[in-house]
């Protein structure tokens, strides 16, 4: 059973730290809304583990003026892809 975790608050919320102990190998983490600021911080992206797939929602990144080039470990996806990956994972857990 793989899980897609969505995170929708800025790093100030520490939601990533809260969620990581419950994230399994093969799970995915998608940053949406103010969660996309996790993608902006280089210090944070060093922590992004490679046995998890990392996603950032394009529409929310664009709105906030976050440059996509800086983000290496993270796949930038749009709403259509958001729906697609909900199919790929077995369930979705929302962190807000």
């Amino acid at each position: 059973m793989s899980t897609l975790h969505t995170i929708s608050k800025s790093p100030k919320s520490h939601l990533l730290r809260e969620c990581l102990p419950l994230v399994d190998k093969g799970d995915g983490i998608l940053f949406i809304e103010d969660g996309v600021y996790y993608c902006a911080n280089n210090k944070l992206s060093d922590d992004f583990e490679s046995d998890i797939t990392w996603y950032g929602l394009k529409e929310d990144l664009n709105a906030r003026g976050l440059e996509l080039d800086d983000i290496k470990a993270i796949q930038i996806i749009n709403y259509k892809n958001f729906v697609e990956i909900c199919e790929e994972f077995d369930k979705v857990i929302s962190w807000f």
Partner: protein
Amino acid sequence: MKFTIVVYAAPYSSQAAATAFNFSKTLLDEGHEIYRLFFFSDGAHNTNKIARVPQDEINLQASWDELIRDYDLDSAVCVSSAIKRGIVDEQEAERHELSTVSLFKSSEIAGLGQLIDAAINSDRLLNFG
């Protein structure tokens, strides 16, 4: 694939209700199905038909209503969330001796059993709050 979308957030004060709407619209455009929309807690405010919004902004309540009607969706509002927030249909207005109906005809007042049922009978349940 059958989705259930649970909305906990009021429109306008946070982005979550708008995200839920965009996600719902996209999945329907992509040919998926919504088993049920469930509006819970402040999410109940999304089903208020009285709201009006300036022309250059999105009327999220009206957008939900349109989406629900266009796709003939099952849309439920948690009864205890709704009544205390001033969201009533004709039956509840009558029961509580209120002269006004504030719930869009496209949504129905429902109990939490409808949320459990939706979780069981959907392939995916997504929470937006």
